[in-house]
C-alpha cells in the first residue's frame, strides 16, 4: 500500500480511505465533538499521508495504529489551538474543563483502539450484549458457548476496555 501511495496511484488513495476513514473520522469526531471539525481533521490526516507517503515506517507498528496516533495528535492539536485562540481573543480561561475534555477524548481514543483490536470472540460477546441486547444466556446460545464462558468473555472484554480509563492523570496532558 505504501509503495502504491508513493507511486502516486489514485486508486491506492481510494483504498486507503475506504480502509481507514471510519477510524479517522470516528476518532476525530470523538475529540472535536462536531461533524464539520471531524471532516476537516479527516481531510488533514489523509492529505498528510498522501503528501508524505514515506512518513510511515512499518517499524513503528501497523498502519492502522500509526494512522490512529496521527489522527489523535492532529485532533488534540487542533483542539488546543482553538482553545488558545479563544483565550487569546479574550475568552475566559477554563483550563480545567478543557483538560477534562482532552482527557476524555484520549480515553475515548484508547477505547476505540482497544475495541478494534480485541479478539473477535470477546468482541462478539460484548456486541451481542450491548448492541443486540441479548442476556448472557442468549449470547452463550448464539455463540455456541457455555454460559460460564459467555460471562467470562463479557467480563474480560469490559476489563480490557476499562484499562482505557486513566485514573492517575487527571491533568491528561497527553
Amino acid at each position, binding site marked *: 500500500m505504501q509503495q502504491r501511495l508513493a*507511486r502516486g496511484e*489514485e486508486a491506492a488513495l481510494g483504498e486507503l480511505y475506504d480502509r481507514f476513514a471510519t477510524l479517522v473520522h470516528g476518532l476525530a469526531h470523538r475529540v472535536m465533538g462536531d461533524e464539520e471539525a471531524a471532516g476537516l481533521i479527516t481531510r488533514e490526516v489523509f492529505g498528510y499521508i498522501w503528501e508524505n507517503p514515506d512518513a510511515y515506517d512499518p517499524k513503528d507498528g*501497523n498502519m492502522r495504529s500509526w494512522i490512529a496516533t496521527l489522527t489523535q495528535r492532529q485532533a488534540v492539536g487542533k483542539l488546543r489551538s482553538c482553545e488558545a485562540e479563544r483565550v487569546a481573543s479574550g475568552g475566559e480561561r477554563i483550563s480545567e474543563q478543557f483538560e477534562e475534555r482532552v482527557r476524555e477524548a484520549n480515553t475515548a481514543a*484508547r477505547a476505540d483502539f482497544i475495541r478494534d483490536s480485541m479478539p473477535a470472540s470477546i468482541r462478539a460477546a460484548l456486541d451481542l450484549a450491548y448492541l443486540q441486547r441479548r442476556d448472557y444466556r442468549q449470547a452463550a446460545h448464539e455463540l455456541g458457548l457455555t454460559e460460564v464462558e459467555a460471562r*467470562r468473555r463479557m467480563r474480560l472484554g469490559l476489563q480490557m476496555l476499562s484499562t482505557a480509563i486513566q485514573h492517575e492523570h487527571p491533568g491528561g496532558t497527553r
Partner: protein
Amino acid sequence: MTDSHGPDDPQDPHGPEGPDEPDRPGDRNDPAGPADVPRGAHESGSYEDGSAYGNGSAYGGGYDGSGPYDGSAPYDGPHDGGARREVGGSTRPVPPGRPLPRVPLPRGAAEDRPLGPAPVPPVTPVPSYDHSTLKSLLGAWALAACSPEETTAVEAHLTDCALCADEALRLRDAVELLRPEDPLDLDPLLRARVLENCLGRRPARVPVPEWAGPYDAETARLDALLRDLGSGDWNASVRLEWHDGSCDVTVAEVIGHLTAVDGLIAAALGMSEPLGTGAQDPIDPAERTKAYWHRFGDRSPAEVHDTWREQGHALLRTVSFAGRAAGGLDVPYGPARLPLRDALVDRAMECWIHAGDIAEAVAYPYGPPAPRHLHRMIDLAARTLPGVLAGRRRAGLAVSPTRLVAAGAPGRSLHLEVEGAGGGDWYIPLDSPAAVGTAAGSVAHVALDGVEFCQLTAGHRSPQDLAAGQEGDRAVISDVLAAAAGMSRM
C-alpha cells in the same frame, strides 16, 4: 507482558483466552510496538503493571489486561465460603476500613435502551450464589445481561464486598466506552472531498480515469453499507427486479451477482476473476450469475464481500494503469460489446441500484450517486436508448411509425429533459440509431427526475407509474419509455 492470573484460574481450564482465541487479548498492542496505541496507553503503564489503579485496589496485584482478573485476593466476606482456592500470588488484601464504593445501577446497554435489566424488587429472599459466581457475573451485570434474580444477587453482594464493588464500578464505566461509531455517520460526500483535497496537494501520477469515477464512488458506498451490516442482515431477502422478471435472493447473492458480472470486464482486461477465465464460463450476465451462485454458494458473507471488493479494487487499479485511452477498448458485455468507459459506468449504475435494493431490504437510508456520476449514468442510458428502440421496432413491439433517415442526418427526436442534480437535455433520435437527434426535430417532450429515470431503466419503475411530464406525440413517448424500461436485465 506477564500473565500472572489466567493460567492459574481454576475457573478456566483453558487459560485466559480459551482454546478458540489464538490472540491473547493482552497482545493487542504488542505487534505494533510503542507507537501502536493512541498516545497514552503505553506511557501510562496501565496495561502493564496495574499500578495506575492504585495499591490496595482490586487491580493492585498486577492485572495486566491479558486475562480475566480473577479478583482472587484473600477475602473473608460472607460469600467467600472457602470456594476460591486460586492463589493469585500477587494479589493483595483489601485494606481494612477501606470505604465501600457506592455502586449505582448498571447503565445498561445503550442510553436509549428501552428495556433495562428490569430492576426487580427483591420480593423473594436473595438467592444465594457463591462469591466466585457473583464475581463472574460482574461483566454481564454491567452490560445488563443477567437474569433479574442474578441482578438482585449481584447488587446485594456489591454492598458488602469491596473487591467486587470496585470492579463493578470500573466495568460499568467501561460499558460507556462501548458506544460504537456509526459508520453511516460518515457523510458519503466526505470521500470525494477528502480525495479531492489530497489530489490538490499532490497530483496523482497514476490517476483513476474520469469515466471510472462513478464505479470507484459507487463501489465504495456499497462497501461502507456492507461493512455496517450485522451478520443476520446478510440473509435478508432482497428483491431483484428487471424488466421481464424478478427474484428474491440473499444479500450475499446480490454481491455474488455483482461480482460475476464485474468479472466480465475483469476477464476482458486479462485479469484473473472469480469465475476463472475458462472458455466455458458464460458471457451472459444472468448465466454467469447462476454459475457463480452454483459454484460459490457455500462461501461466507465475509468471503463474498472480500472477493467482490478485491476485484473492484483490482479493476480500478488496472484501468488506472491502462490510462485514459483504454476507455475506447471494446469489451464483451452481455449480448453486446461496449467501450470500456461505458461498461464501467453501467457497472457503477448497477452497483448503485443493487445497493439500493440491499439498503431497502435492511431498512437503511441510501442516497443517489453524486450528480456528476448520475449525469454519466443518464447519458449512457440516453445513448443506449435509440438502439434498444430500433430493436423493439424490429421485434414489432413499437407502436409509433418510423421514417427512413440517412445515417448521420437529423431526424425526429424525443426531448428527454432530466431534472435535478446531474440532469440535462438529451434528444433521442427516433428513426434510426444512426440518425442525429436535434432540438429542431423534437416531436415529443418528457421531463422527469434523474433518479426516476435511472430507476426506470433499471426496471424498478414501470412507465405507467412514472412521475413524468409528457408533451407531444403520445405513441413516441410510449415507445421510448417502454424501451427505457426494457433496457434492464438481471
